[in-house]
């Protein structure tokens, strides 16, 4: 449990341009993942496990599904006196009229009242593009111990080009201090940021006020990189399971990694990941079904063959249907004798009897929400 009061802030929309298809009607934070979760569950659960009880969620667009998911925050134990606050797409009035923020600096500037009034010493800022279960208490304590102005949470570098695009790499010198920041480039000498930061609350307000008055927009470039000599920016190395969702391909790949028990032990074993409760009944496996190597959420009915899949809640696989190497989101229906291979189906998709669909493991086939094939 953290010894200092700390505020959590989740940015719900950052990076969603990279997974365009799946975020057409939802925010990055509400992207379904792992059978019953949405990406926002990872930072929220990590906050709650560290004892953070006040969280702001910064939204910009497409946030209806996110609001529906979060509700009162009860399922994360955040239905508290000062629990979870939706920081709706704060349009702020400027000399140019009503504006919606661009970039993290404007986003924070737009919610500065909320941060000013939070009775906290530190602020943890997190995007929702990473699948991980970080120890926030350890991260904040690291920040305090190092007397840092800003701490960036980082992972070992991954040369996968998909991972490098839109990534932030940092070079770490003595005393965990960051000496350089690079954008969209891989180097084995640099760590990669996982877009979680710790800042003192007053420091954050001061930095953002200053940057905002100079029309700056990008936090990492305009505040951190520009001031590396005067600000003490430290890197915390996160050693557990960390994956970044950068598009359909990585979404697919990371999803199927859940069929590795070591991955699930790391992701779910150290701390419970909370999510919205749905009251789905247990999964029914009928006589004659065949299921291997799959991660299956409650509410499914399995009569056919399922191999190496992630099935979200309430998926139906009828008799004679064969589903392999696929991720089927909530309420996907696979009719009799249909065959799917390397498919990502969004919510409420119906694949009719006998249809055959396949993609490639490097290029999975995505089926849009509510489609009927």
């Amino acid at each position, binding site marked *: 449990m953290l010894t200092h009061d700390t505020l959590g802030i989740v940015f719900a929309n950052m990076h969603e341009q990279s997974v365009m298809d799946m975020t057409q009607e939802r925010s990055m934070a509400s992207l379904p993942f*792992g059978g019953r979760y949405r990406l926002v569950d990872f930072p929220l659960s990590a906050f709650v496990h560290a004892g953070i009880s006040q969280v702001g969620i910064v939204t910009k667009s497409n946030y209806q599904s996110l609001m529906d998911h979060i509700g009162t925050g009860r399922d994360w134990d955040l239905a508290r006196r000062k629990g979870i606050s939706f920081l709706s797409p704060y349009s702020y009035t400027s000399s140019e009229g009503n504006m919606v923020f661009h970039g993290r600096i404007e986003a924070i500037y737009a919610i500065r009242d909320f941060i000013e009034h939070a009775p906290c010493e530190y602020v943890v800022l997190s995007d929702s593009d990473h699948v991980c279960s970080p120890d926030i208490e350890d991260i904040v304590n690291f920040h305090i111990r190092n007397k840092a102005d800003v701490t960036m949470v980082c992972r070992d570098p991954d040369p996968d080009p998909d991972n490098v695009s839109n990534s932030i790499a940092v070079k770490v010198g003595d005393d965990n201090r960051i000496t350089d920041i690079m954008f969209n480039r891989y180097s084995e000498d640099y760590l990669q940021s996982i877009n979680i930061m710790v800042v003192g609350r007053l420091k954050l307000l001061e930095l953002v006020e200053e940057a905002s008055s100079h029309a700056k927009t990008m936090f990492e470039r305009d505040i951190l990189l520009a001031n590396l000599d005067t600000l003490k920016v430290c890197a915390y190395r996160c050693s557990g399971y960390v994956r970044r969702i950068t598009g359909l391909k990585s979404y697919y790949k990371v999803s199927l990694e859940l069929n590795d*028990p070591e991955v699930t032990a790391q992701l779910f074993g150290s701390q419970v990941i909370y999510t919205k409760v749905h*009251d789905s*009944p247990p999964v029914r496996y009928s006589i004659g079904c065949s*299921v*291997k190597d*799959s991660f*299956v*959420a409650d509410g499914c009915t399995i009569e056919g063959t399922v191999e190496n899949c992630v099935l979200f809640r309430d998926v139906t696989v009828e008799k004679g249907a064969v589903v392999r190497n696929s991720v089927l989101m909530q309420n996907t229906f696979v009719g009799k004798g249909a065959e799917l291979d390397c498919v990502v189906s969004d919510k409420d998709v119906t694949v009719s009897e006998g249809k055959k669909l396949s993609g490639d493991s490097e290029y999975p086939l995505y089926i849009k929400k509510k489609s009927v094939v």
Partner: protein
Amino acid sequence: MKECVAMLLAGGQGSRLYALTQNIAKPAVPYGGKYRIIDFPLSNCANSGIDTVGVLTQYQPLELNEYIGNGKPWDLDRLDGGVHVLPPYQKASGSDWYLGTANAICQNIAFIDRYDPQYVLVLSGDHIYKMDYRKMLDVHKASEADCTISVMKVPMEEASRFGIMNADENGVIYEFEEKPKNPKSDLASMGIYVFSWSVLREYLLRDDANSESDHDFGKNIIPAMLNDGKKMQAYAFEGYWKDVGTIASLWDANMDLLNPSHPFDVWSKENRIYSRPLSLPPHYISATAEVQNSLITEGSQVYGSVDTSVLFGGAYVEEGAEVSYSLLLPGARVKKGAKVMYSIIAGNSVVEEGACIGGTPEDSESIDDWGIAVVGPNLTVGKNAVIKANAMIYDNVQEGEVKC
């Protein structure tokens, strides 16, 4: 003021569930993969628009109290009403444990009076069924009865195991027989009553003053009302209803869920059954697993073979283990090469490698000796131990030991 308040009798020990109810009250016993028995009456209340429920607890209430909590999962955390746990309490003029079902309600007259209801619905915490209590209440109102009793048809040859209601063609009950030798009708009481509160209140007080009474609804209150010529109406319920008061019936009721032609549909979104969630990740079926005709829920991991069984949250079946016709309650673990047949393994118990639990009816010398084997909660069954069919295990079993 509330039209109807529900009182749920949840204080019984459930002694015929033996090892399963050593530390918990019967309504807290797990059922159907992710439910507990009490989820059924609570969800039925929520789905019937009854928003005020008193839960009468007495025997081992801790786990049940925690489970009910503020009633949020059943939408019973209300500003006015909601779910209230009601243990016996001390009064200015002496106090006592709940002496019987009627006495439990009688001791809580003040609770019911706070809501000034017209009707009181009395429920049991040991039945699995889905029911819209509004329909029963409608019958009660339309027939202007003082008491309406939910009944269902049972096979005539089994009727002598139940409380039998003899009613005329309009459903007006003229006689009640508890477990009659020669039943005159096949209408069994389901232990679900609607009373007009003013009438019940009077009978409860009268019963309370009678030191000879067992203070029981079936034995005392209902016969007394019949004797006085109060209007007693039968409400015929059609659908699945099961008393899960014994090991065999609890196992049966779980197996019913695996029968594809069985009418009981826990899964329909209509009148959904709610439960307090465990927040576990989806379950995992490995490449070495073999799963047939089973119910599996969150947090489970299956590496071995599972056939015609129910796996509750966090159950674990290791590679080479075989589980058939069994229930693995939350957190139960069956290790490599162990065999579990026709058994109930209670919460967090571990069956070590090579152990063999339970047996098939065919392998039993006589069907009378056969039964479901039960391993109580938080126990370890040692390596290569053998637990015969029908055994009831309360303590750890050592390596290689044989238990009958």
